[in-house]
């Protein structure tokens, strides 16, 4: 009977995915769109909330786990991917979703970003990229465009921004996409694709900051973004993916840049995870004969 009940399990609804409190984001913040798309993607992917662990760092967008009814961890600034890697390896039955902002992921967390992709950790990483530091009230971010005036660059930034798409492809991420909160249906599909992908999935998402970024606004992206599927892009074409990823100007592509299905995720490469279920639930203790063997090494 138990298995029957499980099989007939009712799909979770968007309403049931609402967290304990409402978001405290500014009215019009792009992050509302990411939260809505994530909920819809979870519903459409048929995931159970208690099997999802949503992990974030610090920043406006990193408050997201509190607004979502799954297991959640609101970790330190920049550290979400490191925590997520540990959690995924320790319990590979969990679906790991990581959320955060551009400063959190590409700035202070840049080292973990590169290495989590190199390892192809099985998780879905949604970066709410607003090209500004919002929660600290408007300083330059790693993705702020050159020349941008912010509180920390009052005379315009002289630095080049980071471009997460080619960086992710080069580092080894096996699913690399860019969404825009103004294209909800596409964003849901991109996130759902990430949730269903086995390996590291990056969904860099333009999520405009209505308070501190007056350059890269909703209107800005509405005019410049163009869907990759309308550009005839093949996400298994590496050169095409890098070429489209470099584009920034009158046309900014959004969609799935790159997908590699034949690359095993880190947990699939670890022999100790081959059988026995998640590490987190394995019994503790060392068998007597193993203990004897360990001691014998010392004699």
């Amino acid at each position, binding site marked *: 009977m138990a298995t029957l009940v499980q099989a007939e399990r009712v799909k979770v609804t968007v309403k049931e995915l609402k967290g304990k409190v409402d978001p405290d984001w500014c009215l019009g913040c792009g992050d509302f769109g990411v939260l809505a798309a994530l909920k819809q993607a979870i519903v459409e992917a048929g995931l159970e909330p208690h099997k999802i662990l949503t992990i974030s760092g610090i920043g406006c967008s990193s408050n997201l786990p509190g607004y979502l009814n799954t297991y959640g961890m*609101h970790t330190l600034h920049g550290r979400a991917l490191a925590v997520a890697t540990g959690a995924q390896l320790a319990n590979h039955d969990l679906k790991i979703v990581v959320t955060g902002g551009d400063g959190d992921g590409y700035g202070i967390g840049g080292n973990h970003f590169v290495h989590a992709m190199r390892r192809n950790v099985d998780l879905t990483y949604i970066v709410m990229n607003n090209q500004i530091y919002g929660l600290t009230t408007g300083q330059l971010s790693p993705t702020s465009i050159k020349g941008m005036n912010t509180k920390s660059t009052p005379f315009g930034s002289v630095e080049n921004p980071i471009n997460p798409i080619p960086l992710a492809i080069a580092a080894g991420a096996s699913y690399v996409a860019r969404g825009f909160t103004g294209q909800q249906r596409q964003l849901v599909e991109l996130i759902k694709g990430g949730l269903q992908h086995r390996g590291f999935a990056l969904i860099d998402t333009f999520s405009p900051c209505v308070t501190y970024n007056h350059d890269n606004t909703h209107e800005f992206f509405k005019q410049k973004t163009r869907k990759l599927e309308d550009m005839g892009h093949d996400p298994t074409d590496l050169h095409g993916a890098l070429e489209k990823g470099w584009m920034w100007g009158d046309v900014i592509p959004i969609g799935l840049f790159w997908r590699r299905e034949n690359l095993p995720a880190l947990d699939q490469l670890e022999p100790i995870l081959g059988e026995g279920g998640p590490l987190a*639930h394995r019994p503790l203790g060392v068998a007597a004969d193993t203990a004897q063997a360990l001691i014998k090494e010392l004699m």
Partner: protein
Amino acid sequence: MRRIDLAIGIGGAAGQGIATPGDILARIFVRRGLHVNAYNAYQSIIRGGHIFLTLRTSDQPVLSQGDKFDVLVPLNQDTMNRHLRLMRAGSAVLFNSDAIKPGGVPDGVQLCPFSVKALAPTIKGDLVQNTIALAAILRLVKVEFKILEEILAIQFRRRGAAAVADNVGVARAGYEYAATHFTEFPFALPDLGKRLAFFEGNQALAMGGAAAGVRFYCAYPMSPASGVLHWMSRHARQLGIMVRQVEDEIAVINMAIGAAHTGCRAMCATSGGGFALMSEALGAAAMMEIPVVCINVQRAGPATGVPTKTEQGDLWQMLGAGQGDYPRIIVAPTNIVDCFKLVPKVFNLVDKFQCPGIILSDLLLSEGRSSIDPTELDFNVPIDRGELIGLNGNGGPSNGSFKRYLLTESGISPRALPGTPGYLHVVATDEHNEDGVLISDEFTDPHKRQAIHEKRMRKMDGVLPLLPPPELHGAADAQVTLLGWGSTEGVIREAIEQLADAGIVANNLQIRWLVPLHADAILSILSKCQQVVVVENNYSGQFARYLRSETGFAAAGHIRKYDGEPFMPHHIVDGINAILAGSTKLYVPVHEIQV
């Protein structure tokens, strides 16, 4: 009384193969039931420099590297120049006379030159002199050749039968040459008929983790903590432990926290510099109330410092690691066996109290090696996971209103593992209320903040009664009490033996559990002591200052060493003599051996 007390010094440049004869001798000694202590003084260099291994054996437990050498094996001229002058009457110096010349020989020291060219004319390589010296030493203490033959067969097995035959042949030549040319020692190395084991502190820490049920271990390589990583990596598949080398120590501790949150027992190890990078995340573990264990193997700081030298200089870093007040448990093992035994205890505590635990080792303990009675290595340890919901996927009934940070009298709130139906919650490094909702942003509430902060902190009240209070070792009415913490226990106790020989009655109070500290018990003991001298391996008297801050007790005298090398017993004896004579309150010994 010690019937046997034999100390062997083997020195040379990095790359001259000092470890192998050291290992072979140690193996032979413990197979005879003899106790061993080994300490390797080395530098941060792969080739060259000066490495000096002290291997001391006795029929009684060996507490420290000791003060003297009975045998010196200089593998190069530099070692001969540095150490010959410190040799005492009755000792022997074995060396390859083809390449090394003695200088001024102290009275009564037996020079034992041998010619590698003459004894092993056909065998190439620099390591031949090691094997000859090794065999000659064993001849001097009357160990039968077949014992060495057996060990060489094991040691060189992987290099093939020819290598074994070569080494045995060379060893036999050395053994026979010693029999006819050198004067043997006035004793024979006994066989006590019981086998002991031999391990280093880092192995002990790693094995303690295995016994505790560690399922996740990650690290960034850093001397002198890498030995834990090496042991864990070698045994990962055998024991089902996820072992990862990751990009930096910030990732290390955060990964361990992520793994621990899902229910794994997670551990990591580093040295002071790596620990500094972990500081913020230790606070995060405490804030999210996730149990994790971090080992800090101290080396001489600050900054990169002296990577291959020992110090007890990180105490205040441990006490103050990270911003804000948070519950933490800190323990400093006092010997190598303690390294093994404490790890499961710390895991039980951090699981129960859902906070970070720090094990404070140092290079002396972690890279020092000691014999141990194998029956003491009990892997069948008590395991207490604390109030944990959802282990093995079984969460039990839930009314759907689980409060992860439920305010309780003990401060301990039941912890539910991700994956458990009915217990959904968010853990946060931001301040939060009972159900995990943030109070740091929009609805900051001073009353809620106070309540949840007090809940976290009062968990510490429950820890102290579970920790054994320290006890005085030695005569209660001693004229001087040597107060130490962590790794100095052995050398302090050996110094006490030497003081007793000189008619000075001393005892020892050694502190193992540092946070929480049994301040009342310690003050009660110290207030009855005649004179208290704090012995520690740092410049500023970190423990003496901590003790004063927790108890108001100010010690009468201090012996401190911060040159990178561990104390030798006579350093402490000299210090006690100087302090008792009233000539100083702070004694800083000079390390005579230049390594």
